[in-house]
């Protein structure tokens, strides 16, 4: 079955997304970019270029490079004469008064230009997905009239796409956030793009989205913010050096790039450095532009632009007869909504509501369109609902900590296993305590069950290998098996009620773990430090026993003293600052206590216990004595 895609056909940039494996995914174009400029060029030698390539040659071919086609689509020439003056190419009146672009004596309809952009997006996506893209959902601004919607649909047809539906951009944003699945809500969508600003108020709920009011400013966007910063930098430079950088195209280009970068940085930092060495030169030699821009300065420079957003928001709210307190959700769309001052304004206008921007604001519209495409193709409902384990599952290991075997949110059915060993010499049995929860210490988690695996053959600690297998079937039933790899003896337990926690209990456990995370981390590290000390003390003891009388008497005396200290520290549950120095001393000592080269070589198969490493390279944790 062919994949249906969602396309955000923008004024300056377009984005395509597909429903993939149960979620909307943005598809990069052939050049590897996730957004494609909505630009089409007709070159002198009859070539047609779309996207980034078209934009690169626009300066050399201003009359043959068409951009902002969206401002003209489905419009009559007499409606857009103002817009026509603002662009570098020729806009003329066609048959029946429709707006047409004239390039080298040939007339093109705006829908033909948009079709080229759609074609490129669909072709590139087809290459990426490995299958031809035939069907699409395309978005338009909520204020588009029937003629504009039909023309957009025609653009899709010209591009060889079956247009499953034309949907509103704010609606798509609401779908991307899954708001349609929630209860009835009033949603404000604030969309500040590169060159246009739109506000919409939606009624969302029960799978239906209704646009109650829209307002906007068709010539306000991120580019205006860049321009302000460029002027500020250039003015300042001119004051100090007497040179206007704006009259030098090369310097201006660098200024624009630096301004955009600074703007982006000021969204996350309070200040940034603009550094343009060798920006120009005069008789006195090269000149450099170095300036620190504070966020407060940037806010100051762009305050009136931000204020201009206010009118349309108020307008939309009064048209929809909605007060700030009636708004349940605020969605931010468009890259310029990353500007902190813009977000502050939105908060101010919506009674302090925190706006949503967890979905990339440049991509949210295309993602929502892909969700719609998935729904229309029946793929969304067809997804097999997969269960996950609500909480982590594991066993208790030495020192009373929980070792997780299956992490929370793992999709089931699932089977995981880990190998453990004994904590004492000749330990005859291991206790398996099955735990559920997110806390580090076993005692803070829920015990689901316990059993013991008996008859382990006598062996030094660390040698027996006990495999613990956790298996959850599709019904959520957990089966825990412990198997002695030496004797193949097995013991197991089946726990069926591990998932009968309700949602609030799970959430509480997760949030408790979150709030205790730092403390728990400290406790776990303390336990691990003591385990390490215990382990190295044991190795030293063992080495001493092997060496017998060949160990130097003073080494032996010192070792015995340190081992006794270590045992004491473990017993008293000493903090890491006492444990760690002891561990490193013992480790050093252990290295000094090499057996003579002609010795018995320890006799262990994998070399465990040799050298200074602790012996846990096949073993992940150790069980306490039962």
């Amino acid at each position, binding site marked *: 079955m062919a994949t249906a895609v969602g396309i955000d056909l923008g004024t300056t940039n377009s984005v395509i997304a597909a429903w993939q494996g149960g979620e909307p995914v943005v598809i990069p174009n052939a050049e590897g970019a996730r957004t494609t400029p909505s630009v089409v060029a007709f070159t002198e030698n009859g070539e047609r270029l779309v996207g980034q390539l078209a934009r690169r040659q626009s300066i050399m071919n201003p009359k043959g490079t068409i951009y902002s086609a969206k401002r003209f689509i489905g419009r009559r020439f007499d409606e857009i004469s103002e817009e026509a003056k603002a662009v570098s190419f020729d806009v003329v009146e066609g048959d029946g008064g429709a707006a047409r672009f004239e390039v080298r004596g040939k007339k093109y309809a705006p829908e033909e230009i948009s079709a080229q952009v759609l074609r490129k997006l669909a072709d590139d996506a087809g290459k990426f997905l490995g299958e031809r893209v035939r069907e699409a959902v395309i978005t338009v601004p909520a204020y588009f009239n029937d003629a504009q919607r039909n023309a957009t649909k025609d653009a899709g047809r010209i591009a060889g796409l079956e247009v499953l539906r034309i949907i509103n951009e704010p609606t798509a944003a609401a779908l991307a956030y899954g708001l349609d699945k929630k209860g009835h809500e009033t949603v404000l969508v604030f969309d500040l793009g590169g060159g246009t600003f739109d506000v919409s108020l939606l009624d969302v709920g029960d799978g239906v989205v209704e646009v109650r009011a829209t307002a906007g400013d068709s010539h306000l966007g991120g580019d205006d913010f860049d321009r302000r910063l460029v002027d500020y930098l250039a003015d300042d430079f001119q004051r100090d050096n007497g040179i206007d950088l704006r009259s030098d195209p090369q310097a201006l*280009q660098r200024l624009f790039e630096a301004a955009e970068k600074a703007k982006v940085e000021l969204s996350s930092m309070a200040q940034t450095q603009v550094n343009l060495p060798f920006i120009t030169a005069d008789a006195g030699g090269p000149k450099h532009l170095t300036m620190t821009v504070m966020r407060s300065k940037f806010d100051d420079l762009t305050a009136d632009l931000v204020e201009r957003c206010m009118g349309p928001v108020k307008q939309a709210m009064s048209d929809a007869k909605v007060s700030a307190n009636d708004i349940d959700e605020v969605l931010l769309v468009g890259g310029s909504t990353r500007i902190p001052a813009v977000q502050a304004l939105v908060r101010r206008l919506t009674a302090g509501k925190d706006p949503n921007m967890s979905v990339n604001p440049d991509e949210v519209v295309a993602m929502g369109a892909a969700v719609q495409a998935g729904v229309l193709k029946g793929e969304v409902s067809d997804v097999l609902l997969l269960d996950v384990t609500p909480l982590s599952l594991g066993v208790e290991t030495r020192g009373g900590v929980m070792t997780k075997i299956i992490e929370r949110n793992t999709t089931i059915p699932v089977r995981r296993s880990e190998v453990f060993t004994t904590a004492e010499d000749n330990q005859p049995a291991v206790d398996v305590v099955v735990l559920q929860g997110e806390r580090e210490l076993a005692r803070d988690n829920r015990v689901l069950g316990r059993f013991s695996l008996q008859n382990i053959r006598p062996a030094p600690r660390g040698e027996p290998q006990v495999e613990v297998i956790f298996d959850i079937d599709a019904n959520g039933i957990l089966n825990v098996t412990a198997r002695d790899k030496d004797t193949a003896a097995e013991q197991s337990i089946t726990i069926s009620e591990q998932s009968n926690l309700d949602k609030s209990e799970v959430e509480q456990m997760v949030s408790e773990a979150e709030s205790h995370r730092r403390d728990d981390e400290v406790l776990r590290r303390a336990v691990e430090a003591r385990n390490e000390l215990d382990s190295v003390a044991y190795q030293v003891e063992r080495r001493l026993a092997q060496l017998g009388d060949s160990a130097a008497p003073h080494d032996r005396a010192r070792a015995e003293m340190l081992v006794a200290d270590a045992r004491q520290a473990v017993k008293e549950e000493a903090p890491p600052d006492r444990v760690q120095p002891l561990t490193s001393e013992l480790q050093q000592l252990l290295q000094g206590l090499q057996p003579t080269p002609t010795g018995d070589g320890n006799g262990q198969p994998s070399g465990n216990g040799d050298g200074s490493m602790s012996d846990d390279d096949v073993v992940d944790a150790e069980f306490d004595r039962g």
Partner: protein
Amino acid sequence: MAIPAEQSTSEQDPGATAEPVASQADRDEELARLEDRWRRAVADLDNLRKRYARELEHERTREQSKVAGAWLPIVDNLERAISHAGDESSAVLDGVRNILREAVQVLEHLGYPRDAETGVPFDPERHEVVGVVDQPDRTTGTILDVIRPGYGEGSRQLRPAAVVVSRRKE
């Protein structure tokens, strides 16, 4: 996506006709449905694995170009500094010139060769026009000057060369 379920009906149940139980057809259907689902799940997993492998490669390339790209302004500025010195020669300057050469070489070894060729025709894959100069004696669209060299080519392009092109005044 391939549809692996298509073979599922032919390769099973040799005894299906021998036992004419009433619910046999239902069971066969259920079995076929389940087999179809299972094969789809396995195929999905396999495709996901392939997609992962592909995406990993893609992400690696992307990360590499991100890191390499972040250094380009520094290489550019080094180049600007040197060009301001003109033909001057001093031990320090020669040393700095060597540093630039080294930087360009590093980029080339990473797979981003420098592109600063003039006199060639404009190619939107390689060039970005930042200026136009009227030149009656040259064909339109010849690269007259490279303002900022490009690095990388094809799908591994860090950025195109910023160029000034000729235009024949008509």
